[in-house]
């Protein structure tokens, strides 16, 4: 599968999921808008996936254990 084909498959798969969840409340024009937005999301995701990180690269967001009296 070529890269454009893989992108298309991913877009269509995710679009099917969103259409299944919300399609009943959207008209054809709105669904086309949703599909366009999903194309952007997939393009961004692929750009993120293309960057290699190491096991040590943690999310830039710390979890802090909670304790009411501290």
């Amino acid at each position: 599968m070529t890269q454009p084909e893989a992108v298309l498959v991913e877009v269509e798969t995710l679009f099917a999921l969103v259409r299944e969840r919300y399609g009943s409340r959207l008209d054809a024009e709105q669904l086309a808008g949703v599909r366009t937005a999903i194309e952007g999301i997939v393009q961004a995701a692929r750009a993120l996936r293309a960057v290699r990180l190491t096991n040590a690269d943690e999310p830039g967001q710390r979890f802090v254990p909670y304790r009411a009296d501290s």
Partner: protein
Amino acid sequence: MRAEDVVFTPVRRLAEGIRSRRLSPVTLAETFLDRLERLGPRYNAVVTVTRARALEQARRAEREIAAGRYRGPLHGIPYGAKDLLATAGGIPTTWGAAPFKDRVFDFDATAIRKLEEAGAVLCAKLAMVELAGGMGYRQPNAAFTGPGINPWSREAWSGGSSSGPGSAVAAGLVPFAIGSETWGSILSPAGNCGLAGLRPTYGRVSRHGAMALCWTLDKLGPLALTADDCGLVLEAIAGRDPADPTTVDRPFRYDGAGPGGRRFRFGVLRGVTDGCEEAVRENFEHSLDVLRDLGSVEEVTLPDLPYDDITRTILFAEASSAFEDLIESGDIAGLTAPEDHYTAYARDAILAKDYLKALRLRGVMAREADRVLAPLDALVAPGRATVAVMLGGEVRSAIHGTARDVMGAVGNGAGLPAVAVPNGFGARGLPTSLQFMGRAWEENLVLAAACAYQSRTDWHARHPPDA
């Protein structure tokens, strides 16, 4: 000082008048309340004029100052707050969105409370793009109050998403306002309206009581006539707040030092003007000439990373969760902009692994940005690539992937402070702007640089002729 002389007077000078009792806080409040009521509708700038609360606060300020209890430079100064900050006393907090237009909270946001403690006078809740633009709007008409209208041209937009703060300060309806920025919502209206706008470091100002769009990106900050005024306001609203665990215990005191004999070291990202309008590029080049008189300017580079994609993915994923109820219920159909009725549904397509990859890349981005900024005092760039869009036009934005904004993606994604100031005019006589972005917690440094620039230019002293 006469009442008519106070409009377009910076906070610092108003404060001198109040402190010396040449200026009455009550008279000042009445002047701006009258302007808000009379001119606010012209710019779609106001949701609620808070006349009763303002006059009560102004009378209290007058009594305290007369008794020798002067609280500081915001004592008796009128201001407006973007309508995503909770206010008690029956004052609605609408988030700019029709589904919430009658909603009332029973408490004040921390920023509102701290401004009250500083003696400032809340005169209005100001208009904004619905839900701070979090549902994917692509046009100025995306608020139940109508599109924010630019005082420099009533055919142009003032936002977004802090459209009301931009319009109101630029039109002389309030001396300063509080806005919020997730990605661009302080710097953009400041740039569109020819104002100073300060985006503080993430965690500098409590978000308690502010609408959450993206928990890890939202910041509150001032829009004002000068960078110096932004520093005065930031000092009042900054600080640790137990109600917002992301705030830090780093007290901020605006040093207002000005440049003195300091020589600044500025950096410019390679290619930062790519995609800018010609006038924006030309005005930026002129600004660099001014900055070379203040220090050095050098070209710098960041590694090739998908900066826009990182910050956009975080924003979309968090906004989708923050407004889960509104989206799942279908109530987004009650929003104003047609595209806000459906765009958010697409964000179910963001996979958890990709969101986490964006968060991991945010760490890399933050380290790289700090490495580039460490030897510099500030990165400088155009505040926006274009002048304000026309009211019937399309809002092109890196958030939608229809423009690039590396400075905004890095600055917001890494939570870095930046201040925008006016640096000229472009198409249709609309303002252009210059931004200074610094390392985390270096607000005093970027403000000093911006103040130094403003000491050499007079763009900030020009005001819309019709206002």
